[in-house]
């Protein structure tokens, strides 16, 4: 069913990811402007573009005794992670590649965010940056295992780790219908890996921006754009995993992929604003004692159903 390696998929990938990321950022700006009671909230949709132009025109600020090598490595790693992860996300039937272990590829690439955030936080030579990097590691320990089990559940349901075959396995019934717990856990881990919304503690304002405390100019642009791109790609991956991929009436498959992705992404951005930040000293225990057992039970149910 998939057409891995289609040349146009390679060409289309970066602009689609950028477009989705920009859309998410714009949607968030509109919501923020409405909440703050600023007039003509819709105009705020252009704020991310404005911010991008502003950051491009500014020199990066140099911090004394910063570890610039590690800082830049982290800054560049974040958008790179988003693009590498996007390679196994199908747009309709087309994807850059469809390896036999596509789900593991996504997982392995996404874990590199741990390194990216920590490198940026540590490299900044600031106590707040250090705390931000530290917070992301605690967050990673809380979300990564439930996330892996959610992915495993999908693989078990489809009896394959190949994304194309997972989409095919949902021709009768979308996985979201009989794996709701795994879907919910996956969405939560999307927010966590993109450190967004209630899981934005690593870059929260209480630590003056946390890991991103010293970023300015193009460095900041890369970091923030990478973060939104990651949010968009991880939301897009929910479509082949749980929402039947490009399946749908009337519209072509690629259009259905985009529509479903936009709904998931827009919903995440909207829902993310409705909660305060969740701190890991409170949340980690819940993640291990509630989320992991819940998703394991889900896996058991799926396993029995598959047998």
């Amino acid at each position: 069913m998939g057409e891995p390696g289609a040349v146009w998929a390679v060409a289309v990938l970066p602009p689609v990811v950028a477009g989705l990321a920009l859309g998410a950022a714009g949607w968030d700006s509109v919501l923020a402007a409405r909440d703050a009671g600023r007039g003509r909230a819709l105009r705020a949709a252009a704020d991310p573009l404005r911010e991008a132009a502003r950051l491009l025109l500014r020199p990066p600020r140099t911090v004394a005794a910063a570890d610039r090598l590690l800082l830049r490595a982290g800054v560049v790693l974040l958008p790179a992670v988003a693009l590498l992860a996007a390679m196994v996300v199908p747009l309709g039937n087309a994807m850059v590649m469809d390896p036999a272990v596509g789900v593991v590829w996504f997982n392995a690439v996404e874990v590199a965010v741990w390194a990216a955030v920590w490198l940026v936080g540590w490299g900044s030579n600031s106590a707040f940056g250090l705390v931000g990097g530290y917070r992301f590691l605690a967050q990673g320990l809380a979300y990564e295992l439930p996330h892996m089990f959610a992915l495993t559940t999908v693989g078990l349901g489809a009896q394959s780790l190949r994304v194309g075959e997972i989409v095919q396995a949902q021709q009768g019934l979308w996985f979201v219908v009989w794996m709701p717990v795994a879907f919910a856990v996956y969405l939560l881990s999307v927010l966590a890996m993109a450190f967004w919304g209630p899981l934005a503690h690593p870059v929260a304002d209480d630590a003056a921006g946390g890991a991103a405390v010293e970023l300015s100019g193009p460095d900041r642009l890369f970091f923030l754009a990478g973060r939104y791109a990651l949010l968009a790609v991880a939301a897009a991956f929910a479509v082949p995993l749980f929402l039947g991929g490009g399946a749908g009436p009337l519209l072509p498959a690629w259009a259905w992929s985009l529509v479903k992705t936009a709904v998931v992404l827009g919903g995440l951005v909207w829902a993310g604003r409705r909660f305060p930040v969740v701190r890991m000293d409170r949340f980690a225990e819940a993640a291990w004692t509630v989320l992991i057992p819940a998703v394991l039970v889900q896996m058991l149910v799926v396993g029995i159903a598959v047998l």
Partner: protein
Amino acid sequence: MGLISRLSCFAAGRPPFFVVTAAGGTAARLGVEAEARERGWRSVASPAACSVLVVCGEPGPDLEQAVERVWRQIPRPRALVRASVPGREHLITLLDRAEHELAAPDRRDSGDHAAEGHESGDEPGMADREADRDGLKLDVLHVQLGPVLADWPAGLVVRAVMQGDVVQRAEVATAEGTGRGSFWTEPWTAARTGDPVARGTAERRGAARSLDTLGRLLAVAGWDRMSAQARWLRDDLLADHPSERLTARFERLSDSVGRSRTLRWMLRDLGPVTAPPARLAGDAADRLHALLAEAGTAMGLLDDPTPLDPGNEAHDAPDTAPVSLLPDLLAGADLGAARLIVASLDPDLDRPAASATHG
């Protein structure tokens, strides 16, 4: 280079700004925040992220030094706004000028007495070693919280000894206020000196104070949506909007915040206080609910025309109780918890004669 200049013009709109407030600068801060909100400026929590640095009030020598250091680190194009006195017309001129400077970056900017080159001066310094709360001997770092910190009480400085993100010990210092008293207690002070003040006017000010604290606590708790709504309501209260619509908006806000289980989960057990005064008793979640109740009562009395009885409650006495509690409450809390504890106590250091070191 038409493209570049048009791009920089576009980029100059709705700039991100960072506020530094000196003790006694509350009125100016409120004016700046309200005007910036109207213009769609976005407030940011890190100087590195801002284009406009706003200094509210009249900084003392220590704060002035810190401001200059922060200013040196901000890359161009940038603008410095010194809002030493409140007054809407004055602030409009200042913010207009800042927008203008950002759009024409080749001009020298307003704060150019500072030297060129953006080297950060506030590096954390070398680590020492101390026993941690489990008795392990680990590295410690000396970190100063304030006075240049977003959503932080003006005039407060906490010198913390940290291991990882845990505050092991904290020393608290407060800056000298201007001696002119707090913006928040003005109606009571006026009533005491014999000026006729309507009760509604004072309650309006009191409700705005509660919402300011609420907005700050929610911002520190990372709930931008509710924090923005609280601040919007505060600005409308201070702009003397009619009370009916404000009360309805407050009810909605109070409902959403008061009922949030996540917020309660994150705030409970933080900074438990047993000693009086009553408004500080309990943990941070209790203080949040006391704050909502206090604001609710005040919101119901906005139109009360009876003259204000200044009473014997010491509205203009120094607000020392929260400050003296801080060192004990902060020891052992991680940075996130420590910020929430401070925000939930929110000492008003603009009141006169609040100068002491505890720790």
